C-alpha cells in the first residue's frame, strides 16, 4: 500500500497552511527524517519531514498552494518494491479529515479553516456601526488587531508596543506582524522574559505620558504582573489625587486555546472586572477587535483587552473607515429574538449564535447579546432585552464562582426582577482546572448544546 503523506499540524491551533515548496520530486528516494517540503503557517515556516522510507510517488498538492487544510493528503510515498501502478486511486481515499483542532469543531462558522467568504454575516442584524460604516472588508481578527494598532500608532507618536516576541518574531501569534518594519525598534520592543518587569516598565512609561500597548503572550503569564496592573495602573489616578494617570492597554489572548491545559487556559474576565479603575474589554468579531482596540488605545485609563487565540484566524467584515471605533461599555445585539436573552462574551458569542440557530429549529427565538465590554457593563441593553424576553441565560468560558454570570445575575435581580419569568441561568466552565486530553477538555468547556439546554430550561421546555 502506498503511504499517504498528510498536511501536518505544526501547532495545536493550526488548521491550514500554505505549501510553500517541495524539496523532493517524484521518483526521489526518501529516508525517515528527510525534508520533503516546506509549509508556511500564519506563525512560521516549517519543514515537513518524512516519517517513513520509500520513494516519493506522486505530489498531490502543488507548491504555492495556499489554505491547505491539515490532514489533506499532499503526496504519496511508495514503499519498497512498489511501482507507480500502486498509485492508482491513491490520494483520493481520504477526504481531508477534520482538522485536529477541537476548537474548530466547537466554534460556529466561520471555522478557522473556512475561507473568508464563509463569515457568518447573515446572523448579524443591523447595529450602530453597520448604520454608519457601510464600506467593509473581510479581515481576520488577527489582522484587525494589527490594523488598529498600526492606525493609532501612525496618528500618535506616543504609542508604543512592548512584549515578548512582538518585534523580530512579529508576535507569538503574529498579531504584531509588520509593526517593527513600519515603526522601528524604539516603538516595537522585544522585552526580556519578565511580565512582572515589563508590566512595571509599561506602567512607569504611562505615568510619564507615553501610551504603551503591553502584549502578554497570553494572559496566563500576566498573573505575576497583576500587582502592577491592579495596585498601580488601576489605582494611581485615584491615589495621586488625579495628578498622574495610566493610559495603557494590556492585551493578549485570554481563555482556553486548544490543548494547552490548566496553566494556559484560564478566563481572566472576572478577575480584572472586579477592580475599580480598570476597564475590561472582550471582543468577539474582527470588527469588535478593531473598533474596541482603537478605543482602548485612545482611552486615558488602563484597559484590559482580552483576546482569544482560537478567534485570531477567524474572518469577519470590518469597516474600512479609519475613524471607525466602538465605544467601550456598549454591548451589541448580534441576533434579535423574543423568547430568551442569551448574554455572552468573546468566543462564547459564536457558540451562543450556534445555539440560537438550534433553538430556532425548536421554535425558540433567542436574542444574543455580545457584551463586548465587561466593565463598564452595558446593563441597559441587557435589561431592555429582558423586558422583551423575560428570560435570560448568561454564557462564559470561565468558572462559575464569582464569575461574570454571577454579576449579571445579581444586576438583573436589582434591575429586572419584575420582568423575569424564570431564574437567570448561568452556563460556565466546569469547576476544575482545564485538563489537557481532548475528550476531557471538550467536556470541561461549554458547548452550544449546553447553551441550548439552559435556554430551554429557563423557557420551561
Amino acid at each position, binding site marked *: 500500500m502506498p503511504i499517504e503523506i*498528510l498536511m*501536518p*499540524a*505544526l*501547532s*495545536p491551533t493550526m488548521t491550514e497552511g500554505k505549501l510553500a515548496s517541495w524539496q523532493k520530486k517524484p521518483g526521489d528516494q526518501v529516508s*525517515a*527524517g528527510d525534508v520533503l517540503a516546506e509549509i508556511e503557517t500564519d*506563525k*512560521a*515556516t*516549517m519543514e*515537513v*519531514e518524512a*516519517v517513513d522510507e520509500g520513494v516519493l510517488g506522486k505530489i498531490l498538492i502543488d507548491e504555492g498552494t495556499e489554505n491547505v487544510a*491539515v*490532514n489533506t493528503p499532499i503526496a504519496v510515498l511508495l514503499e519498497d518494491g512498489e511501482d507507480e501502478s500502486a498509485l492508482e486511486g491513491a490520494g483520493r481515499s481520504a477526504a481531508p479529515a477534520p482538522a*485536529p483542532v477541537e476548537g474548530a469543531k466547537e466554534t460556529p462558522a466561520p471555522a478557522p479553516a473556512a475561507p473568508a467568504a464563509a463569515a457568518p454575516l447573515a446572523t448579524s442584524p443591523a447595529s450602530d456601526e453597520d448604520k454608519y460604516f457601510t464600506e467593509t472588508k473581510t479581515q481576520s481578527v488577527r489582522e484587525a488587531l494589527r490594523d488598529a494598532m498600526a492606525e493609532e500608532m501612525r496618528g500618535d507618536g506616543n504609542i508604543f508596543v512592548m512584549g*515578548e*516576541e512582538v518585534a*523580530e*518574531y512579529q508576535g*507569538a501569534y503574529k498579531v504584531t506582524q509588520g509593526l517593527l518594519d513600519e515603526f522601528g*525598534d*524604539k516603538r516595537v*520592543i*522585544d*522585552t*526580556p*522574559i*519578565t511580565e*512582572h*518587569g515589563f508590566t512595571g516598565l509599561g506602567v512607569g512609561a504611562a505615568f510619564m505620558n507615553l501610551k504603551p500597548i503591553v502584549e502578554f503572550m497570553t494572559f*496566563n*503569564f500576566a*498573573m*505575576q504582573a497583576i500587582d502592577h496592573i491592579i495596585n498601580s495602573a488601576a489605582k494611581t489616578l485615584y491615589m495621586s489625587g488625579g495628578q498622574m494617570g495610566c493610559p495603557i492597554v494590556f492585551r493578549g489572548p485570554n481563555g482556553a486555546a*486548544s*490543548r*494547552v*491545559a*490548566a*496553566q*494556559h487556559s484560564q478566563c481572566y474576565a472576572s478577575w480584572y472586572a472586579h477592580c475599580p479603575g480598570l476597564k475590561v474589554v472582550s471582543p468577539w468579531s474582527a470588527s469588535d477587535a478593531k473598533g474596541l482596540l482603537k478605543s482602548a488605545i485612545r482611552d486615558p485609563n488602563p484597559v484590559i483587552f482580552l483576546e482569544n487565540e482560537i478567534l485570531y484566524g477567524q474572518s469577519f467584515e470590518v469597516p474600512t473607515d479609519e475613524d471607525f471605533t466602538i465605544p467601550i461599555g456598549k454591548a451589541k445585539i448580534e441576533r434579535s429574538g423574543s423568547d430568551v436573552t442569551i448574554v455572552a462574551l468573546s468566543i462564547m458569542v459564536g457558540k451562543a449564535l450556534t445555539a440560537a440557530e438550534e433553538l430556532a429549529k425548536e421554535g425558540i427565538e433567542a436574542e444574543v447579546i455580545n457584551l463586548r465590554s465587561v466593565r463598564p457593563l452595558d446593563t441597559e441593553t441587557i435589561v431592555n432585552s429582558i423586558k422583551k424576553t423575560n428570560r435570560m441565560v448568561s454564557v462564559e468560558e470561565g468558572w462559575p464562582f464569582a464569575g461574570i454570570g454571577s454579576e449579571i445575575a445579581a444586576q438583573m435581580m436589582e434591575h429586572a426582577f419584575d420582568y423575569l419569568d424564570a431564574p437567570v441561568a448561568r452556563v460556565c466552565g*466546569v*469547576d*476544575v*482546572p482545564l*485538563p*489537557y*486530553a*481532548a*475528550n*476531557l477538555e471538550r*467536556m*470541561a468547556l461549554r458547548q452550544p448544546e449546553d447553551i441550548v439546554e439552559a435556554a430551554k430550561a429557563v423557557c420551561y421546555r
Partner: protein
Amino acid sequence: MTTDPAHTSPLSLTVPEPEFRPGDKPDYSTTPIPRAGTVRRPEVDEDPEQFRELAYTIIRVLNRKGEAVGPWAGLVDDEMALTGLKDMMKVRAFDARMLMAQRQGKTSFYMQCLGEEAIACAFEKALRPGDMNFPTYRQQGLLISGGYPIVDMMNQIYSNERDPLNGRQLPIMYSSKEHGFFSISGNLGTQYPQAVGWAMASAISGDTKVAAGWIGDGSTAESDFHAALVFASTYKAPVVLNIVNNQWAISTFQGIAKGGSGTFAARGHGFGIPALRVDGNDYLAVYAVAKWAVERARRNLGPTVVEYVTYRVGGHSTSDDPAAYRPKEESDVWPLGDPIERLKNYLVGRGLWSEDRHTQYKAEVEAEILAAQKEAEEHGTLHAGGKPSVRDMFEGVYKEMPPHLRRQRQRAGV
C-alpha cells in the same frame, strides 16, 4: 534641582542585537573558548571570594583530541562514561521519535533537547535518591538517565489511557516524585524560588536531601530568579541553581536577558553566591561541576549557581521555526561541538568504544525506543485509541471531592 546646562543633550536607548541574524555567516573564530583543563578546581569549602573568576571562564575537561584533562578530570570512571553515552543517545533517539509523532499528529506539542543532552544526563548522576529537581521543559535527560520508563513518558505525551497524569497536563510536562522530578510548571521561573523553598524545608527538617533548580537563560530575567537568589544566599539553602544558557529564548538572544552582566553565572556574585561556568556539551565537565556543587549543598556550605554554556540546536518547540531569527548554519559552527560526538571520541580513544559499536548501539536504542512507542500507542494517542478516564477529570481538584464536583460528575454521567 539644578538647571545645569551641561547635561541637556538628548538621551537615547540601547537595544542589544545578536551577533548574527538570518542571512549572516556565523563565525565564532574570535569567541574566546578556554582550553580544556586550564581552569582550577577549588575545594568545596574554599572561601568563594577566592574563586570569583570561575564565573567568567568555561570549565572544560574534554579537549579537541578527545582526552580528559585538567583538575576537573578523573571523576567519571569508564563504566559511567559508557552509561553516559548511552543515556544521551537514548535521549536523542527518544526526542527524534517524539518529534515525528508530533508531526504525525499523535501529540499536539513536543520540545526536544537536541545538543543539550549532556547537561541533564550528567547532572542526574550527581544526585541521590530523595533529592529533588525542579526542572524546566528541556530536562528529559534527568528522567531517562534516572531510569524512568520510556513508555510512561510516551503515555504522558500521548495523553492516553495509561497517562500517569490522567490526561490533565500538557505533553512533556512530566511529574515523578519517586524520580526526583518535580511536576513541570508551564510558568517560567516559578521552579527557582520553589527549589530554594524545598531545600530550606529540608534544612529546617534536619533532613539530608538537597534540591536543584533549573532555569533557562531567557527566564533569568524573571523576578522569580532574583528572589530565589536572595533567599538562597541569605539562608544558605542546600540547593544547586542551574542556568542552562542555550543562547536562545525562542527568538530572543541571550543578550536581552543578560544585559551588562558579563555572564549569567556572574549574576550569582551580586547575591554573594559562588558561581561556576561550565561547558554544557562536555559530559565529563558537567558531571564534575554538578558533583562539586551538590557536595557543597550536602555539606551545608550553601547554594551554588552553575551556568551551562550550550546551544539549542532545534527549535524552541514544535511551534516555532528558528530559521526566522537565526542563521541555519549557526549550530554547525557553534564552537563547543556535539556532546554525544565528544564523549564518543573520548571512549573510542580509550579503546572502550568504536565507530561500529556506536552504529550498532544507535540502531539498538532506536529499536528500543520504537518498541516503547508501539507499546505506548497501543494505549492510545492524542486523537486515536484509549483515552484518559472522564471520571478522573473531577479528581484532584481538592484532596477530597467537594459535593458540587460530585454533582457535576454525576451530571456528566460518569
